[in-house]
Every structure is written in C-alpha cells, then in structure tokens.
C-alpha cells in the first residue's frame, strides 16, 4: 500500500493528486454522457478512454503543459483534459461545432489540437505522430529550453514502420521525447499476440539503446513515476524513453464497434471489475486524502459541469457551409 511519504517523495502534493483525480472523473463523466448522446443519435462517433483514464492523466501530470509538446492519439480524451481542454470544448468537438478548438468540427472527436496548449493536431491515422514527435523533439533540443515532446499511441501502432523510424531517429539524435504506449492488448479485434512479436512493447527500447519501462496503467503513482523519470532524462539531454503502460479497454474500440462480437463475455466481465478509477479512489482514501463526502462533492459538481457543457455544445450553431473552403492554404 502507498504511503503519503512515498507520494510526496514523488514531488506530488495532495492538491495535485486530487486535481488529477478530478480530471480522471471528469473524463469518465463526460465520456459516459457522450456514449448516451451517441446512442440517442445526437453525437455521430466517439472513441472512449474507458480504462485508460488513470494512465493518461498520470502521464500528463508529469509534464508541463505550458512548456512541453503533446502528440496525442484518438483515445487520449482524459489526456486532453489534463492538457487543459475544457469539458465544454470537448463536448463542442463531440457535436462537431465550429467552436471546437481542435478543428472547428472538421475532425472526428479525438483528434486533439491546440497550438497555444502545445497539443499538436493529430489525424486518425495510426502511427505517423511517432516520427513526427521525433522531429518536434529535435526542434526542442535545438531550442535548448528543456522542452519535451510527449507522444502516445496504442500497441497496435507499434506495428507500423513509423514506430520504428521514429524511435530510431529519436535515439540517434537523443531527442527529448517520451514515447508512451497505452497497451490495452487489443487493436480493434486483433489481440496482442497477433500484433506484437516478442516479449512486449517495452522490450523494444533495447533495440535502440534507450530505456524501456513497463508499468501498470491502473497505478497512478507508478505511471507518474515512470514518466517523471523519462521527462527528467529528456530535459537533461539524455534522450528518449519508451514507456509501456498496461491498461484495459473497458469499452468497445469505438461507438461503431461491439467487442462482444470477438471477445469472451467472461473476460469482459473480469476486466470491468478491474476498473482503475475505483482503485485510485481506494488508494486516495487509504492515504486519507479523500473522504466519501469529498468524493461525492466532486462527482456532483462534475455532473453539473457535464450538463452545462452538453447544453452549451448542443445549443451551439453549425458552421457556415462556406467555411468548407477556408484554410486549405494560407491564402485560401
């Protein structure tokens, strides 16, 4: 069991941890609402972070959103909140409204981008952000201000040639990059054994002469520690680290998928019982940092926040069709 001393040794205060916990719960509350909205047809397409939230927020908590860069992937809904996106902004993107800061409703929700927050706009394509992050890391090294580029992806993405090219380049040039793999053991319906040859994702770091760390993705403090060490290395000019956070995909791949079609009911039930959020709540309670009343207050205020965000996004207008032609080029 974790002690407050251990946690404070990580340089984390109770406030920081409770803020992270609230972000995690916010992601869950918003995602549950998005799911309902999808089933009622109000929202076309959603990719749920369910099961990944703790790992995502723990990782981002170890970085510095003002100073660092973030190449997120479509499942990083909780990470986006940790990077500073608001509930309303993410609801605006779920409803594809022009006020969506990532793309003005042009991209599917999940392709997060915000220049002022250092969140590099992504695409739906699996893999290309990995070598791109190496290039961003190279630029940050040249700038010499100690900035780090964080890039996340699933274990399926590690099969792409771009994963290899990105790690090779970053390792050769000691780019300050944290490669964060959210290994949920499934790529839509393809299990890890048909996806990742060998012992696992973390084991691939050795091929490039960089540290590879596997960590339990439902352990907030373990993920925070692993990413902090990687960030320190990167800021110190010692180069990239590959982190594999083992997580569970507690939802189907997306709202267009139904994992009951290709996974055992028993396995799904067993995983549902291992939801990382109750586990974190228990840890915080054990630490004496969170009481049942406090938790109830947090959940209640999040409900109001989700209601308000949903209402605002729902009420927002659609874009003018003429905007279709904007931003193909700087001058058009």
């Amino acid at each position: 069991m974790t002690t407050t001393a251990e946690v404070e040794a990580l340089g984390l205060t109770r406030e920081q941890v409770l803020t992270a916990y609230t972000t995690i719960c916010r992601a869950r509350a918003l995602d549950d609402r998005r799911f309902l909205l999808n089933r009622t047809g109000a929202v076309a397409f959603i990719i749920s972070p369910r099961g990944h939230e703790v790992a995502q927020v723990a990782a981002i908590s170890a970085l510095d959103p003002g100073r660092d860069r973030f190449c997120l992937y479509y499942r990083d809904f909780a990470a986006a909140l940790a990077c500073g996106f608001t509930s309303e902004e993410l609801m605006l993107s779920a409803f594809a409204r022009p006020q969506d800061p990532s793309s003005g409703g042009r991209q599917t929700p999940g392709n997060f981008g915000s220049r002022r927050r250092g969140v590099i706009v992504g695409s739906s394509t699996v893999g290309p952000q990995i070598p791109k992050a190496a290039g961003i890391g190279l630029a940050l090294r040249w700038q010499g201000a100690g900035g780090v580029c964080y890039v996340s992806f699933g274990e399926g993405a590690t099969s792409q040639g771009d994963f290899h090219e990105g790690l090779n380049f970053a390792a050769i040039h000691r780019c300050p990059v944290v490669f964060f793999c959210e290994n949920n053991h499934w790529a839509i319906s393809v299990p890890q054994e048909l996806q990742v040859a060998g012992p696992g994702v973390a084991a691939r770091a050795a091929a490039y002469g960089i540290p590879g760390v596997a960590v339990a993705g439902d352990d907030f403090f373990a993920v925070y520690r692993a990413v902090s060490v990687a960030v320190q290395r990167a800021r110190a000019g010692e180069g990239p680290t590959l982190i594999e956070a083992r997580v569970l995909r507690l939802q189907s791949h997306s709202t267009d998928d139904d994992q009951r079609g290709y996974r055992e009911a028993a396995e799904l039930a067993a995983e549902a019982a291992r939801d990382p959020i109750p586990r974190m709540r228990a840890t915080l309670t054990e630490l004496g940092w969170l009481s049942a009343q406090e938790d109830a207050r947090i959940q209640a205020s999040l409900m109001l926040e989700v209601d308000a965000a949903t209402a605002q996004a729902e009420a927002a207008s659609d874009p003018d069709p003429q905007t279709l032609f904007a931003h193909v080029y700087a001058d058009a």
Partner: protein
Amino acid sequence: MPDRTLVQAVRDALREEMERDERVCVLGEDVGRKGGVFGATEGLQARFGARRVMDTPLAESSIVAVAQGLALEGYRPVAEIQFADYSFPAFNQIVNEVAKVRYRSNGDFSCPLVIRAPQGGGVRGAFYHSQSVEAYYCHVPGLKVVAPSTPADAKGLLKAAIRDPDPVIFLEPKKLYRAGREDVQDGEPALRPLGQARIVREGADLTVITYGYFRAVALDAAARLQADGIEIEVVDLRTLRPWDVALCMESVARTGRLAVLYEANRTGGFGAEVAAELAERCFANLDAPVTRIASPDVPSMPFNARLEQAFLLDADRVTAELARLARF
C-alpha cells in the same frame, strides 16, 4: 437469385472464390474474428480457418508485402486495407513493387493479388475515412483499378479480379455497402469481366460518365431532368484501369455532350483522364465542352454533417450542372 447488399455481395464473391480455389486467401486488419469493420469478411474465418483468413498486424506496408510474397509463391491473396485512406503507408509496396514485378522481370514473375479497400464519403468519416484514391492508382502501369457501384458488379468484378493474372486495386463505395439490394447470381454466371463499362441509362442528349457512388447520383439527376425533357445517358465505367474508351466514345458520338462526374477532388482526379481523352478523340462530335463535375479541392470531407454535405455533390447540384450543359 438471392437478394444482396453490396457488402454481402463482396462477401459472397470471397466465399465462392475461396471454395473454388484453395489458393485464394484473405488477409488484413480485423478481417478474421471480427469479419471486417464493415462485415465484408464476416463468417469467412469460421468457414475457412485462421490461415486462409488472417488477422494481420496494423501495418499496411507489410500487409501488401506479405500478400505479394504469397502471390509470388502461387497463392491468390486478397488483402483488405481497412479504409482506402490507409493504403498510403503501403504506397511504395504497391507502386514500386507490386505494379512493376512483371515488367521489371521481363515476364519471368507475376504478382496476381487483389487489394480491396472501401472508399468515398458521406458516412461522417471525416478526412481519414472518406477519401477517394483511384487517381493515385490509375496512373500506375501494371495495376488494374476497379470501382463497382452495385451488388452484382461488386460480386462479378471481384471474382474476376481474384482470377486476374495481374494486381488489382478494388475500391468499394462504402456509402453503398448497405444502401440497397439487388438480385445477384451464384457461381460462374455472376462473373463480370474487367474493363467493360456499362450504359446504365440510355439518353440522346448528354452522356454522363461516372463510377462508384456517383452512379446513383447521376441516375437520380437523369430521372429529374427527364421531366424537363432532357434525356441523359449514364455510363458506369466499373473498371477504371483499363477503362472502356470504345464504349464511351460511341456514347459521346451519339449525344455530342459529355459530363464526367466523380467524387474525388477535382484537380488531378481520374475524371481528368476521361475528359482529356474523350475531348481529344471525340472532338468532331462535341456540341459542348466536355465538363467535369467533381468534389472541391479541399482535403476530403469534414466531420461536421453540414460541411460534409457542402463537400459531397448531391443530385440537386448535379442536376443543375447537367441542365446547364444540356442547354449549352
């Protein structure tokens, strides 16, 4: 004859060819246990096993490379690229390798494989699940490119593609996967040869050449224009490389007017090839300029429904364009 949607027809073609020829196998992301994200391979793994219906890693370049290796060893692989937008990581394997195997070996080797990919928009897929990629592949000597628009054509042309001695890029209109049904034959009678276009509606005033999803839009527009006494002839190319120049020329010679209708971005689209070739070869017969009607030059379709509609031409806009051309 069973009543089939386009995606069912694709599945039937795969099943029949796998039953007919044990060299035929299917590989791709999620094609096995799940049966494909659109269900095109549903039930095939249960029927033929995990060897002949293989879930691959998430790596398109290796999907095509592995299919190529199988083809070089005498198998007849059908690789699925989950969305045509994701064929680009495999572009080098397709253009520099697959397409050139026969030619560079002076005929000693061949590479008979099929790459299936759903393409086109109108399904709220946004930029990365909506692109039309035919122009990239129609420029490549050594490749054949097929773009069916009905269940019967999808089945018959896929069967022919699997039997073809050369590599075929098979682009399925995802918006039509479940849009309609038609009676589709079983077995050999279902076969449709590659390279033949089809006049799907006869008309004396104006020829519209199209393919894929836009066939339906063209027919819709043609029906509306009939009310105004304008007789539109609609040609569905079905195969884009090689395309049926003779049938198209014959139609344009009769109507004297041609519109080329396609969903891809206008500039550099395959419709430019069709328009340029026919404008040159039908010069003496043309009463009006060969006109292209295509999607705007913005990167594919945004996610927002209204912006998607603004991108994707509908029968209203196509009707207006055709009316203007008919009256030219």
